[in-house]
């Protein structure tokens, strides 16, 4: 790698780092707060704020991530576990077929 390319890549990394640090510090909402959403001029809380406020009395679980994973998005997780099951079956089928051929 030549010296010019190394200087160019270092400059690119520095530019990207400065952009990220600037955008995280000055343009994103503060850490731990949810952005509000605006639909037709009506400003509402984000859905994450709703989850945080309602999760405990709606599901009774202390871990809010669990309430999102199995409560509010239960169908998604059901499909996800089905995907894992299908992947396991696929691996077994392919590897067994290869072994039988030999």
């Amino acid at each position, binding site marked *: 790698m030549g010296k010019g390319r190394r200087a160019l890549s270092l400059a690119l990394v520095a530019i990207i780092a400065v952009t990220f640090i600037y955008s995280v510090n000055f343009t994103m909402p503060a850490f731990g707060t949810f952005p509000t959403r605006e639909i037709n001029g009506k400003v509402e809380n984000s859905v994450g704020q709703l989850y945080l406020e309602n999760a405990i009395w709606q599901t009774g679980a202390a871990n809010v991530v669990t309430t999102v994973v199995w409560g509010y998005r239960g169908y998604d997780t059901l499909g996800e576990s089905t995907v*894992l099951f299908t992947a396991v079956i696929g691996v077994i089928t392919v590897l067994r077929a290869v072994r039988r051929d030999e």
Partner: protein
Amino acid sequence: MAGMTVIVKTISRIMFPFVFLFGAYVIFHGHLTPGGGFPGGVIIAAAVAMLVLAYGLERVLKSTSFLQAEILDTLGSMAIALVCILGLIFGAYFLETVFPLGVLGQIFSGGNFLWLYIGVGIKVAAGILLILLAMLLWDRGESK
């Protein structure tokens, strides 16, 4: 694969129940603390993978078998589907809880999350272990 030295064998034999217990803890407290069925199942599968590394595949296949892991994988999936269908049987929606919500922070709280996570934990542990065993057996078959 004859296994490693006696030091590695002893350490992994002592560590195995603790790692297994930690995986079970992560599964059973999935609705209370960070964790859940997927990471807990992977921890349990990693405990068995540690035994495979230390003792070799033959010794591990004496204690567990390919068919056993397949049955556990299927039973875990069926448990998840059964807990989901329980809502339909008892007059609620699909996947809606029919268990009482309980007191916040106790292990029998949060409705059906505990039972769903037990099913997911069994399924993921058996599934990851099954992939590992299938690849090891395939590798051994090819090298012959």
